[in-house]
């Protein structure tokens, strides 16, 4: 019997064929620990999955690896989903991992709860930090995947409700390992650009792992730090992500955010019509009330009997005229002139009286003086006797042989005392 030799390639091809057609190997769920973790430059990852006794080579293509919500590392306990196949070139079999998460969803939930508590304690959820949303945004930033359905839902709804707004799409990775950094950088970029007055940050629904980026602390911080108000819009209606608590408003879905971010133009047109009606009503009202007032005024007695307006004033005028007459300046002048004449007469009379009296008194004094003049007395036979310059009034003042002088009215005489007789 002739032996048939086959090639290595054929063997490996056969093995691969057998494995690929084994249903059990095409959908493997595995619980294991990671070791020998390596990342290929193209984004594929290579690692070993092991338990206490055994191990298997594992790889994950970039396509699947980009959705990982955690950074796999040595020693991580994981649950994986994948299929087993042969790598023909090396003749090795390995598990091709399609999904991988940290063992126990409980861990994610714990991490979520812990972070929520920490951020709440730091005040990231505080109501007083919530910014006011613009009522009529002029530009809306949408930070999400540019390829998902979410972005188109948002655009369509805004277009239908309020097409005056502009939309700026900030393309971001919304799941997988690079998502948190991408979301953070787009939030920061939108704040630098200052194009928008409000931001929507979100994505459509997915598993808790898919949405994980929106539970990351760095993303929460970026939302908190944003100067532009943010509406969070992440997936499922019921689940809250961390950024839902930090955002200024939480929408249950991206479509929901689009409904909240702009007013509905149908309502706006109704509102404008209402305001217009109000304007008409208010002006009519004012004119009407002014007309009414005018009518009331024209019917008052004053307008019906304007002559009565003067009655009172006429009386007043008469009173005033008579009072004015009493104060006629010519009369006042005449009255004062009389007073002046009177006073002048009295002054003249009194002066003359006083002058006459004084003149008489003077004459009397002159007469009296005349009587007392020594010359007049001497003319009557009296003379003045002097001893030297002293006037002699008594015989006691002279002695015998004293030389005396006699003064008469027409001259003096020198004489000597011969005899002195003193009479008692």
């Amino acid at each position: 019997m002739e032996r048939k030799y086959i090639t290595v390639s054929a063997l490996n091809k056969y093995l691969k064929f057998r494995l690929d057609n084994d249903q059990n190997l095409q959908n493997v769920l595995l619980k294991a620990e990671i070791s020998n973790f390596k990342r290929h430059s193209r984004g594929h990852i290579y690692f070993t999955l092991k338990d206490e006794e055994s191990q298997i080579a594992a790889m994950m293509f970039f396509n699947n690896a980009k959705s990982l919500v955690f950074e796999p590392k040595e020693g991580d306990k994981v649950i994986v989903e994948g299929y087993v196949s042969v790598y023909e070139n090396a003749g090795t079999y390995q598990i091709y991992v399609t999904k991988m998460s940290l063992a126990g969803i409980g861990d994610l939930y714990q991490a979520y709860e812990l972070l929520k508590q920490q951020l709440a304690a730091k005040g990231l959820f505080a109501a007083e930090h919530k910014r006011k949303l613009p009522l009529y945004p002029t530009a809306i930033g949408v930070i999400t995947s540019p390829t998902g359905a979410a972005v188109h839902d948002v655009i369509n709804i805004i277009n239908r409700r309020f097409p005056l707004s502009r939309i700026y799409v900030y393309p971001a990775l919304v799941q997988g390992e690079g998502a948190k950094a991408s979301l953070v950088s787009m939030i920061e970029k939108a704040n630098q650009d200052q194009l928008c007055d409000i931001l929507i940050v979100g994505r459509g629904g997915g598993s808790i792992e898919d949405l994980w980026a929106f539970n990351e602390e760095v993303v929460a911080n970026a939302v908190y730090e944003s100067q532009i108000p943010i509406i969070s819009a992440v997936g499922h209606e019921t689940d809250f992500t961390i950024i839902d608590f930090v955002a200024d408003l939480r929408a249950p879905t991206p479509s929901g955010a689009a409904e909240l971010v702009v007013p509905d133009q149908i309502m706006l047109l109704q509102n404008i019509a209402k305001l217009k009606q109000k304007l008409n009503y208010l002006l009519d009202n004012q004119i009407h009330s002014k007309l009414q007032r005018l009518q009331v005024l024209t019917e008052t007695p004053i307008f019906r009997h304007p002559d009565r307006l003067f009655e009172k004033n006429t009386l007043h005028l008469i009173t005033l005229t008579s009072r004015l007459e009493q104060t006629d300046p010519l009369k006042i002048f005449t009255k004062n002139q009389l007073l002046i004449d009177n006073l002048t007469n009295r002054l003249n009379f009194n002066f003359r009286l006083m002058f006459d009296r004084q003149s008489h008194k003077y004459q009397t004094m002159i007469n009296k003086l005349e009587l007392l003049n020594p010359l007049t007395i001497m003319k009557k036979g009296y003379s003045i006797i002097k001893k030297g310059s002293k006037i002699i009034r008594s015989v006691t003042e002279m002695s015998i042989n004293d030389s005396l002088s006699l003064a008469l009215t027409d001259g003096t005489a020198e004489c000597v005392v011969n005899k002195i007789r003193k009479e008692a």
Partner: protein
Amino acid sequence: MENNLTFEAAIFKLEDLVKELESGTLALEESVNKYNEGIRLAKYCHDLLKNAETVIVKMIKNDEIVDFPNPKE
């Protein structure tokens, strides 16, 4: 009329005018002026919405602003 007025600015102004008229403290001449301005603003807001075309959508791509597929009509 200020043609560059944003919708927001115009409708806020319109609402303010209505409030002023409601206050009832304006002289008739002022009221008429405010009324005329209000009617103009209402028409302006109405026309802005009525004449609005499809929303403008742009994408920020590597620091450049590029067009983004517009919504389906």
